[in-house]
């Protein structure tokens, strides 16, 4: 694993925009950054990323089984009690999941370590699946990287296949939704809608603010069309607490991600997994704040709110001193403390976090985000990667 400096394509803006990638620059700052790439060996990808990603997913499934039987775990995860049965039923019905992203610390030496699991509403999908794929083809064509290079990235194919498997019979009608005013979220959902169409589905978009409730208890879109299946790029922990939360149970709607993903999309998962498998090579020691065992953590550790996105409210501590933090609105539900990873990839004064993608619980892709600080935030830059021939 190494960081390779490369000259960007002179027309890279046109090249990525031709794919429909509109958010390559966010708030005036470069987000898509092809001035460097991370090169891996195939062994690093398969042994250290692909394998552990699927192993962690299996561990997560074992944890869900346990959590749904233990109310004290659901309480610790701050999941509202009135939704426990709803979550249990979605798990017992075997509702399929579409995708998720494990964030890993890995520097090419030793096992990758789980930083967190974005199980419910991950973004950076379109740029992972399409933009870096097209970058690879062109980088080989212009001789910037060796011909015969590859990429850990079958996301596009897997997403189309996964949409076909979410429910029966085919083709079904799929609504997709996200909040208004976020080009990044809208771009992600539009890409997923494109994949759904290619899977043969009748895909329709509606903003989450437009959702309505019909007199028969079903949700409907902005055009009053009833919703049977809904992909929502909107977190479960918010939906549970908003006014339509009490309508979920009677809506007859199949949600993607399914409600049971709420058990995983929670930083409390990190403490729970460590409790289940202490010493697991791909886990970092972690405990709920207030647990006396927090005293056993390293002097350098990270404090994370149970619900947090894009690095918001995450604090890196050393001997009680704050080294780095990101402001944000989260933290009311509690925190976990986790050992700081000692194997973050670092080169040229920057830190890189690996995002390991799962589609229908299969590891099938990778994205790299690089930041000048050890906390990956929503201002981090996306770097493409390749596998050396």
């Amino acid at each position, binding site marked *: 694993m190494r960081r390779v400096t490369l000259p960007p394509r002179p027309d890279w803006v046109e090249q990525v925009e031709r794919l429909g990638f509109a958010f390559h620059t966010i708030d005036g700052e470069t987000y898509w950054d092809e001035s460097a790439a991370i090169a891996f060996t195939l062994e690093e990808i398969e042994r250290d990323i692909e394998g552990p990603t699927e192993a962690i997913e299996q561990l997560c499934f074992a944890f869900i089984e346990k959590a749904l039987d233990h109310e004290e775990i659901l309480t610790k995860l701050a999941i509202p009690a009135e939704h426990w049965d709803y979550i249990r039923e979605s798990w017992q019905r075997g509702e399929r999941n579409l995708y998720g992203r494990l964030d890993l610390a890995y520097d090419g030496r030793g096992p990758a370590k789980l930083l967190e699991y974005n199980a419910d509403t991950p973004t950076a999908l379109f740029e992972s699946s399409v933009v870096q*794929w097209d970058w690879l083809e062109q980088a080989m064509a212009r001789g910037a990287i060796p011909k015969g290079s590859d990429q850990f990235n079958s996301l596009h194919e897997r997403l189309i296949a996964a949409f076909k498997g979410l429910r029966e019979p085919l083709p079904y009608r799929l609504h997709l939704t996200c909040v208004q005013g976020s080009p990044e979220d809208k771009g992600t959902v539009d890409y997923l809608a494109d994949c759904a169409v290619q899977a043969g589905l009748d895909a329709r978009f509606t903003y989450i603010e437009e959702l309505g409730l019909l007199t028969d208890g079903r949700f409907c879109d902005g055009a009053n069309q009833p919703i049977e299946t809904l992909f929502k790029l909107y*977190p479960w922990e918010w939906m549970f607490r908003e006014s339509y939360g009490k309508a979920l149970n009677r809506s007859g709607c199949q949600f993607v991600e399914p409600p049971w993903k709420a058990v995983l999309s929670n930083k409390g998962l990190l403490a729970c997994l460590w409790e289940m498998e202490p010493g697991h090579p791909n886990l970092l020691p972690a405990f709920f704040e207030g647990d006396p065992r927090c005293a056993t953590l390293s002097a350098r550790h990270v404090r994370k709110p149970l619900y947090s996105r894009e690095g*918001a409210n995450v604090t890196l501590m050393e001997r009680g001193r704050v080294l780095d933090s990101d402001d944000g609105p989260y933290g009311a539900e509690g925190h976990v403390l986790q050992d700081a990873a000692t194997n973050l990839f670092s080169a040229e004064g920057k830190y890189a976090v690996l995002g390991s993608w799962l589609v229908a619980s299969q590891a099938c892709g990778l994205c790299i985000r690089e930041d000048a600080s050890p906390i990956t935030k929503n201002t981090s830059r996306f770097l493409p990667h390749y596998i050396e021939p």
Partner: protein
Amino acid sequence: MKRSSQIGLGAAGVLLVATVWSMTSDSQEENLVYDSLSDCRAAGQLTAQQCETAFSEATAARLKDAPKFQSQTACEAQYGANGCGSATIGGAQYFIPALAGFMLARGLSGGQAQAQPLMPPTTSACPPGSTQPECQQARSSSGSSGGGGSYGSSSHSRAYSTTSGRNVTAAFAGGSRGGSVSTTSVSSRGGFGSTARSFSSHSSS
């Protein structure tokens, strides 16, 4: 290969195909699909001159390579109603599948392969009355447009066949879709989204 073998994008109207590098060959391709000459020009991926060349190549190749039938009925049995037209080839009258679009492999290092004609999907891929969206698009519209969009507009897919009889599906940005009528009424609206408003923060990660 650890990556997708091809990526079709409806909004951008492109079909990208992974290069399988043989260490001796220096060729690589990207497949572009357009329904018409004007779509090709509007998409802006090729120059107007390249579009015209590709279109005339595809037109000529259709006359040369498309399956030829003695009757309209025989042709339509394979390509569906309105899927065929008459053509005079070497002084004789034939019925051949219509030109539904054209596909070309663009060499990224500058070379450009000859354009291929695309014809309506065969009835084996899209049987009469098929509800597959790509078949409905293919059958219902003549001269629909595609290409050049960006994410944000609704997209559709469209089925075609090649002169060798292979069925292919491309995806495009496109027109609206008819909605069905709901017999229930709306009791409320706007019950989701309040947390995002109050946080004014990212709902995704």
